[in-house]
C-alpha cells in the first residue's frame, strides 16, 4: 500500500515523459559502443516506461465525473503569458501513451544488426519516445508545441543518418513539410492567443469558440499542421519517400505512433476548439478524407516496394479516422440517436488509432526481418514461395496483414466497423464512397501474401531463415493484441467511453 500510495501522489506523467529523456542522455554517454549492449540498455529504459503506464491504466477511473482528465499536474510557468505546465490524460491520452510504450521498445529491439554509432541512434529513439509521451499528455499549447517539435528533430536525424540510399532527400522533405505545418500551427495559436488570451486546450475548447476568438484563418493554419502529420491528401507527398527511406524501426515509430499525433490533434484540439469552422468546411474536408482513403489504397496497389505499399496503406487507414472525425463534427439535433452515432464514430477513431499503430508497426517489423534476410531487397516480386520454408513467418505476418485489412475477429475490424456505423448514419454517401478503399486494401494485402509467400519457392531464397525465437518474442505481443482486441474490444472501449461522451457533449453545445 505504501508504494502505491506513493505512486498515487507522484507526478506520474512527468516521470513518464522525462525518464526516457534522462535515459537518452545516459545511453548517449555510455562508454561501450557495442550495439548489442547499447540496445539492451535503451530497450530497458524504453520498456520500464510501461510501468507507470500500467499503473495509470489500473488506477484509471472508467467513468470520472464529467469525463474529465486524470493524473493531472498543473503548475504555473509563465503566468504573464498564461503558460502553465499542465499535463493529464483521459482515455484517448492513455491509449496513445500505451501505444507509444508498446511500439517504442519494439522498434528498439527491431533495430538488430549494428547501426553505425549506436549510442546516438538509440539515444535519439529514446528522445523521440520522450517527445511522444510529452505530446500526448500536454494540455497547454506552449509545452505541447515544444514536445511536438521535439519529436520532429530526432526523427529527422534518424532518417537522415541511418536511412536508405536516398534518405537525405527524404529527410529534408519530411522536415520541410512538417516544419511548414508546425509554423502554420504556431502562427495559428499565437493568433488565437491574441484573441482568447489562453494557451490552455481545455479553456480554449470551453471558451474560445463562443466569443469569436476562433476564426477561419486560424483554423486553416492549425488544420495545416495536423493535416500534414496524419497525412490528409494532398499534404501527404512527403510520406511514401520518408517511410520507405527511413530505417525500418524508425518507420515503425513513424507509422505506429507519430502518424497518430495528427489524428490526436484533430480529436483533442481541432474538433473541440474549432467546431464551427470544421462544420463550415465540412464538404471539402469530407471530400479530402474520401479521396485520401480511395487514392491511397489505389496508389498502394501500384507499388512494388513493400515499404512504399504499406506506407500508402497507412495513409489509407488513417483516412478512415479522418472521415469519422469530420462526420462526427456535423451539426445535428440533440437526439440521443445522433449522439450514439457520433460516439460510435469517435470510438472507432480512437480504437482504430491504437489498432493501426500496433498492426502497422508489426507489419513494418516483418518487412524489416525480410530486409535483414534479403540484404535490403523488399520488392513484392523479389520473392516467392517463402511459406514453404518459413511457415511461422508467413503465418504471423499473414495474421498481421489480415488484421490490417479488417478481418473480423482481429483488431482492425472493430475500429472500421464503428467508423462505418457512425459515418453511414451521419453521412451515408461518404461512407458508401469510402468502401472501395476497404476492397482495394484487401487486394494489395493479399497480393503480398500471394507474391511473397505462395507459389513455387524462388530458389534464390532457399536459405531464407524462419523467424528466430527472439523475433517471435518481439512480434508476439503485437499479434496477441490483435486477437485480444478483435475479440474483446471492450477492454479499451471501457477506457475511451467517458472521453468520447465528453467530446460528443462538447460538440452538441
Amino acid at each position, binding site marked *: 500500500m505504501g508504494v502505491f500510495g506513493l505512486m498515487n501522489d507522484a507526478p506520474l506523467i512527468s516521470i513518464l515523459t522525462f525518464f526516457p529523456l534522462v535515459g537518452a542522455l545516459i545511453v548517449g554517454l555510455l562508454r561501450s559502443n557495442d550495439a548489442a549492449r547499447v540496445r539492451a540498455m535503451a530497450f530497458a529504459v524504453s520498456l520500464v516506461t510501461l510501468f507507470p503506464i500500467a499503473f495509470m491504466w489500473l488506477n484509471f477511473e472508467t467513468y470520472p465525473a464529467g469525463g474529465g482528465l486524470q493524473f493531472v499536474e498543473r503548475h504555473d510557468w509563465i503566468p504573464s503569458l498564461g503558460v502553465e505546465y499542465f499535463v493529464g490524460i483521459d482515455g484517448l491520452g492513455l491509449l496513445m501513451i500505451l501505444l507509444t510504450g508498446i511500439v517504442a521498445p519494439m522498434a528498439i529491439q527491431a533495430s538488430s544488426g549494428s547501426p553505425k554509432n549506436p549510442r546516438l541512434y538509440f539515444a535519439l529513439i529514446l528522445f523521440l519516445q520522450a517527445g511522444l509521451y510529452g505530446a500526448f499528455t500536454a494540455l497547454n499549447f506552449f509545452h505541447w508545441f515544444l514536445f511536438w517539435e521535439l519529436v520532429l528533430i530526432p526523427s529527422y536525424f534518424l532518417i537522415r543518418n541511418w536511412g536508405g540510399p536516398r534518405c537525405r532527400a527524404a529527410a529534408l522533405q519530411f522536415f520541410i513539410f512538417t516544419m511548414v505545418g508546425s509554423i502554420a500551427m504556431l502562427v495559428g495559436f499565437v493568433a488565437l492567443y491574441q484573441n482568447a488570451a489562453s494557451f490552455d486546450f481545455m479553456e480554449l475548447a470551453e471558451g474560445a469558440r463562443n466569443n469569436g476568438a476562433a476564426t477561419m484563418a486560424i483554423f486553416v493554419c492549425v488544420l495545416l499542421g495536423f493535416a500534414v502529420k496524419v497525412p490528409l491528401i494532398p499534404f501527404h507527398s512527403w510520406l511514401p519517400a520518408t517511410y520507405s527511406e527511413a530505417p525500418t524501426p524508425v518507420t515503425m515509430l513513424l507509422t505506429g505512433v507519430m502518424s497518430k499525433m495528427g489524428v490526436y490533434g484533430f480529436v483533442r484540439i481541432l474538433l473541440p476548439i474549432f467546431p464551427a469552422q470544421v462544420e463550415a468546411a465540412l464538404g471539402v474536408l469530407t471530400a479530402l478524407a474520401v479521396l485520401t482513403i480511395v487514392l491511397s489504397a489505389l496508389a498502394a496497389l501500384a507499388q512494388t516496394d513493400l515499404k512504399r505499399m504499406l506506407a500508402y496503406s497507412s495513409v489509407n487507414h488513417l483516412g478512415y479516422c479522418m472521415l469519422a472525425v469530420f462526420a462526427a463534427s456535423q451539426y445535428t439535433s440533440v437526439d440521443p440517436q445522433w449522439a450514439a*452515432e457520433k460516439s460510435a464514430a469517435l470510438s472507432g477513431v480512437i480504437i482504430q488509432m491504437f489498432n493501426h499503430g500496433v498492426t502497422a508497426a508489426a507489419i513494418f517489423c516483418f518487412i524489416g526481418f525480410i530486409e535483414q534476410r534479403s540484404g535490403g531487397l523488399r520488392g513484392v516480386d523479389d520473392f516467392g514461395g517463402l511459406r514453404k520454408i518459413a511457415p511461422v513467418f508467413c503465418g504471423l505476418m499473414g495474421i498481421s496483414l489480415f488484421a490490417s485489412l479488417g478481418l473480423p475477429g482481429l483488431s482492425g475490424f472493430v475500429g472500421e466497423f*464503428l467508423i462505418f*456505423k457512425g459515418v453511414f448514419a451521419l453521412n451515408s454517401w461518404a461512407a458508401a464512397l469510402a468502401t472501395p478503399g476497404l476492397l482495394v486494401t484487401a487486394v494489395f494485402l493479399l497480393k503480398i501474401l500471394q507474391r511473397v509467400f*505462395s507459389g513455387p519457392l524462388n530458389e534464390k531464397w532457399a536459405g531464407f531463415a524462419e523467424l528466430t525465437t527472439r523475433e517471435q518474442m518481439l512480434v508476439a505481443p503485437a499479434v496477441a493484441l490483435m486477437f485480444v482486441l478483435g475479440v474483446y474490444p471492450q477492454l479499451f472501449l471501457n477506457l475511451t467511453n467517458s472521453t468520447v461522451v465528453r467530446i460528443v457533449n462538447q460538440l452538441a453545445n
Partner: protein
Amino acid sequence: MSEATQTLWLIPTLPLLAAGALALTPRDNRTAAKALSIGSMALALLLSIRGLLESLRLQGDHGVAREFFNFVWLSFGAGEAGVLKLGVVLDPLTAVMLVMVTFVGLLIFIFSVGYMEHDANFKQFFCFLSLFAAAMLGLIVSNSLLLLFICWELVGVASYLLIGFWFHNPEAAAAAKKAFITTRIGDMGFLLGMVWLYAETGTLLFYDGGAGCLEQGAIAAMVAKTAAGGIAVSTCIALLIFCGAVGKSGQLPLHVWLPDAMEGPTPVSALIHAATMVAAGVFLVARMFPVFEAVPPGAEGGATALTIVTWVGATTAVFAALIAVAQNDIKRILAYSTVSQLGYMMLGIGVGGVAVGMFHLIMHAFFKALLFLGAGSVIHGCHEEQDIRKMGGIKDHMPWTFYTYAIGMLCLTGLPFLVGFVSKDEILVSALHGNTDSLVSLLPFLMGLFGAVLTSFYMFRQVFYAFYGEYRGGDEHTPHESPKVMVAPLVGLAAALVFFSLPKLNPWGWFSGFLEGGHHHEIPTGHVAVVIFLSVVAFLVGASLAYRLYFRRGIRSADAPDALQERFPEAFETLAGRFHVDELYEASVIKANAWLAKMADLLDRKVWNGITQFVTQVAVMFAWFARLFDEYVINLGFDFGCRRVNDGGRFATKPQSGQIQSYLRVIGISLAVGVLLLTWGCSGS
C-alpha cells in the same frame, strides 16, 4: 430458456477450440489432428441434434418457436443506444441447418483422413477445416447480423486458406485470392446494408423480444421510409445485403470465383464450395427474409427485393448449367452445377419463401457433398486425374464409388421420387403458382425447367464419360477403389439420401410445416400435376440426349472431340470458354482497377509531388531574393560603416588584423535583425 439454447454457443466454440489447439500443436502430430477435429465435430453434431429435438418440442401449433440469448459485446457511448449486443438463436432455421452442417461436415472430416493421408501439412489442413466449421456454425446460430457478418468473413478467410492450401501451386494461390476478393466485393454491399439497418432500427439483433430488427416494429419503420428514388428503405437494405449473398453463393455476376476454387483439395470443395459455405448466401436471405418480403402497406405486386432475388437465381441457374455442359474437368462440372443449383435455391426463396429454398439447400448439401466426395474418390483412384476424357469404365474398378455416386447424381438430376426431385419440384411449383398471367412472370419457371433439362444432360454426360466405356487413362496404372475411410462417408451420405426419399417419410411436408410454423401455402393440385409431368419430361429429355450422344456412340479416345462439339463447334466453344466472363472481367474491371491504381500513383508522383517541387522552387527563389537583398542592400550600409571602423581599427590592432572584421559583422547583422524585429513589433501593436 431451454438448456439446448443455453449450450448453443458450444456448437461453434468446440471446433474453434480444436482449431486453436491444433494451431499450436507440432506439425507432425496427426493423431491430435484427427482426434481433436473429428471429436469436436461429433460433439457438435450431438449438440445440434439435441437442438433440433428441442426446437421440435417447442414447436406449437401456431407460429415459429424461437429462443434466443443475447449479451453485450461492446458499448461505445452513453445510454442504451450506445450498447452493441450479440446473441445466439435457436429456431427451426438454425436447427435444420446445424444438423445438416455438422452431419455433412463430420463425414467430410472422416473422408479427409483418407484423402489427405500423404500430405505433409495434414495437421494444418484439419486446423483450417475446424476453423471453417467453427465459423460456419457460428454464422448459423447467430442472432445478430453483426455476429453473422463476423462469422461470414471468417468463413471467407477459412475458405481462402483452404483453396490456397497447396500454396506452392500458383493457380491455387491465385484462386484463393480471387475467391476472397470477389466475395469481398459483395461483402462491401453487405457491410453498407448492415450499417444502414443499424442506423434505421438501432439494433442488429434479429430477435429481441419485439425490439429486434426482424420483428414487426423495425420492419414497419423501414417499410414506411423511402430512400432516394422512392424505394422503400427496407428494399434498399435487403438488396445491399443480397450483394453479400450474391458473392458468397456464387450468383451472377460474382460467380467467377467458385469454379476456380476447385484448386483446393477435394474435401474442401465438398464441404465449403458445395455443401455449406456457398449455401451461406441462401441462408442469409432466408434469415433476413422478413426484410426481403416487406412491402409498404397497400403496394401493388410482390416485394421488389424478392423479385430481384428470383431473377438473379433463375438467370444463374440456366447460365451455369449451360457452362457445365461443355466442361471436361470432373470437379468443374460439379462446380458449375453448384452455381446453378444455388441459383435454384435463390429462385426458390424468391418465389416460394424460406421453406422452399431451404429444403433444396439441405437436400443439395447432401447430394452435392456426396458427388464431390465421389469425385474425390475417383480422382484419388485415377491417380490425380481430373479430366473425364481420360477416365472411362471406372465403374467396374470402383463399384462402391460408382453406386453411391449414381445415387447422388440421380438426386441432382431429379429422378422422380428421389428427394432431389421433390425439392426441385417444389421450387418449380412455386415459380408457376400465381405467375401465369404474363410471359415475363412465367419466365423464371420456364428457365427453371430448361435448367432441369440441362442438369440432367450434363450429369449423364459426366457419368457416361467417367464411369462407362473403356478406361482411357493410359496403361501405366489402372484405377483402384478408395480405402474404407473414404468409402464409408460416401455410403453414409447415400444412405441418408435414400432414407429421405422413402415415400412414407415425406420430408417436405414435415419440413415446410416446421420452418414456416404451420403456414402452409395451398397450391392447386392441377399445378402440381402439371409441374410433376414437366419435370419428368425434363429429366427424360436430358438423360436421353446424353444417352444418345455419349453412351450409344461411345467415346473412342481421350482426345476425340466431344459429340456436341462436332455438331455445334462454335456454341460449344463459347460454353467451354464459360461465356468468356473471366476474360471480360479481365479486360474491364481488372484492367480498370489497374489503370486507376496507376493513375493514383502518377497523381502522386507527378501532380502532388510536382506541386511540392514547385512550392519548394518558389521558396528557394524567395530565399535567394532575401539573400540578395541582405547582401546588397542591408549589408552594404553596414559594410560601409564597418570599413570605416575597420580602417580605424586596422591601425590600432595591426597584430590581429582581420579578426575584428568578422566580429563586427556578426554584431552588425544581429543589430540589424534586432532593429528590424523591434520595428515590426512596434508597428504591430
